[in-house]
């Protein structure tokens, strides 16, 4: 019976090796994906060491989209928009696109209302994060999860 055991081990080793070998190409196929750590780095690049609080910001985005190439998104921030208390900028990030940034939008007290709208691309079902910088340099954030059935960015062009 020792013979059989060793064969089984060999087989398992082989199977394990194949699984590892199989996993490597999968990993290298998607090196450009913005992982949560690149998302964090991108956010840190904007906010620095400041603490990001949750609240005040609202993301309006469909929870389920068929086409990730054009996803309507509105970001609004609760703020009186006065000279002394207003939103300076709104930054939008994503979790899984090849790049973590989506857009930076700079406004001020003269905007009257802290709200912007645009259309974005999403390469996968993922989280979208919006961060607002206030006039007192505090940061507020909100996030929204979006399920995408047809991904953007990755299709071939013929």
């Amino acid at each position, binding site marked *: 019976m020792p013979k059989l055991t060793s064969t089984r081990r060999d087989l398992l080793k082989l199977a394990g090796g194949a699984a590892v070998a199989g996993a490597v190409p999968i990993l290298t196929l998607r090196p450009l994906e913005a992982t949560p750590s690149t998302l964090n780095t991108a956010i840190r690049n904007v906010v620095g060491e400041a603490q990001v609080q949750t609240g005040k910001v609202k993301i309006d985005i469909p929870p389920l989209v068929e086409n990730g190439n054009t996803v309507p998104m509105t970001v609004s921030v609760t703020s009186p928009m006065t000279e002394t208390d207003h939103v300076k900028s709104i930054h939008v990030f994503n979790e899984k696109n090849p790049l973590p940034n989506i857009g930076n939008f700079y406004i001020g007290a003269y905007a009257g209302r802290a709200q912007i709208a*645009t259309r974005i*691309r999403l390469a996968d079902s993922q989280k979208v994060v919006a961060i607002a910088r206030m006039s007192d340099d505090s940061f507020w954030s909100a996030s929204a999860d979006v399920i995408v059935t047809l991904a953007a960015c990755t299709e071939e062009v013929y």
Partner: protein
Amino acid sequence: MASTLINVPPKAKRGDIIEIKTLTSHIMETGFRRTAAGDLIPRNIITSFTCRYNGNEIFRADFFPAISANPYVSFFTIAKESGKFEFEWTGDNGFSATASASITVA
């Protein structure tokens, strides 16, 4: 010259908050797509958009490849005085487009 579409209310009362909507024709090539032959298509996007109201900057945006083709942006401002809104888009490969719109504030 890229074609642009601007929506600014032609008239407003002083102090009104008005919405400005802008649309530009641009492919916004991400730089991550490949041809069937496997060649990477170089990035070609609009990187910056600015709006000035009688010379003062009231809105600016940095775009990344995650902004959809034919970028649409809407934002708000307070109608302070009659005058002109000037819009400017700049991007890769020396792309530049401008547009303007007038408003009468009573």
